[in-house]
């Protein structure tokens, strides 16, 4: 059993995740939590169904420009291609200074969106790295 937190809303209910043979078999409320006292809403109660959903994708999918179907792609290859895209777009769209000669040191060529379902540690690395890369359009569900 592993202690976890519900991935849906921001109440932050405690969850207990039961694992058997490297598979999540049951997720239920954590009675120790002062927030939820072991209770869960329908979404929280469906968490095991969510992590085990048959609709979950497990492989990278790739669609080339103008392609009509998904193609397979190795994860390593995909990561490498994405790195190339980021570097290339950044290079093309780099803005060093504005019209007044003030520093900008940025790119608006690519944007990043997401994070409200991600962990804080993940958001931290995303903000840190993409800011260092000069990206400014880093946005989040929190805007919505």
């Amino acid at each position, binding site marked *: 059993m592993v202690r976890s937190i519900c991935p849906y809303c921001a109440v932050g209910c405690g969850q207990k995740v039961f694992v058997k043979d490297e598979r999540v078999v049951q997720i239920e409320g954590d009675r120790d939590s002062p927030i939820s006292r072991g209770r*869960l809403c329908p979404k929280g109660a469906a968490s095991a169904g969510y992590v085990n959903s048959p609709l979950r994708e497990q492989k990278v999918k790739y669609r080339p420009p103008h392609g009509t179907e998904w193609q397979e792609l190795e994860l390593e290859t995909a990561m490498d291609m994405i790195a190339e895209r980021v570097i290339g777009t950044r290079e093309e769209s780099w803005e060093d200074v504005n019209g007044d000669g003030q520093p900008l040191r940025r790119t608006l060529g690519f944007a990043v969106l997401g994070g409200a379902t991600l962990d804080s540690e993940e958001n931290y690395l995303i903000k840190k790295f993409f800011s260092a890369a000069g990206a400014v359009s880093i946005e989040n569900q929190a805007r919505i």
Partner: protein
Amino acid sequence: MSEPLEINVWPGSYGAAAKPRMGFFTDTSICIGCKACEVACKEWNQIPASPQQGFTGHSYDNTVDLGADTWRHVAFIEQRKPVGLDSAGGSLVDAAALHQLIDETGLGTYQEGDGLRWLMASDVCKHCTNAACLEVCPTGALFRTEFDTVVVQEDVCNGCGYCVPACPFGVLDQREEDGRVWKCTLCYDRLKDDKEPACAQACPTNSIQFGELTDLRERADRRLNKLTEAGAEHAQLYLAGDEDGIGGAGAFFLLLDEPEVYGLPPDPVDTTDDLGSIWGAAGIAAAALAGGLLAAFARGRP
């Protein structure tokens, strides 16, 4: 699960192994209709999703009723005012159609009159003291546990379907894929591990309370009195005593309106009470048949 096959009587059959009678008190006055009970139940008991119902229009209820794949069912009733025995009611949509709510001024909203209420209630197998399903089960697949709950042994049930119409609450049903009947087990497996049933544990507002039946009944009495004092004139405890037609239930309810408004029978009975007249009539008819046969030959030879 082969051991308690023939056991129908609690606590007698269990002797020292009998446990206090466990049950649910579902206090519908604090149900927020979230359906966590439905989902938690399905997750724990690995119940498949129900056959696609689509949008029913029954307020927020798209589950419709209890059945093989729904062991908890949350009912939603939109009302203009408490229905009671002597006033019209039904769903608001019916009422709207009936009473032509759209008057000439174009407004007839509860802004003027209030009185809107939205009842929500989580229904479940009642785990009757006198359980017709168990009585009619020809295989003994349905049995009474040491917690005085009624459970189907899925490895015994042969899908005869007799319990389905026998239940006065329409709880049991046959699952099409496997032909067996399924219903709430009051999480028998969790009870044996000293854990609360999944629905009760999940219930955010403690509308579903689990515990020893005697405690729950006391709690329910207090709650009913409190609500009654507060003016909830139609508040009532349903199946909370031993005197009803099923001898009381392991799962009982605090309702804010008459049972039938929630789809519950107002006077459920265990038809086993009438077993004498049933077999008696069958015997008389058999005798009559014998008489008829004899009469057919009594007229003499052809």
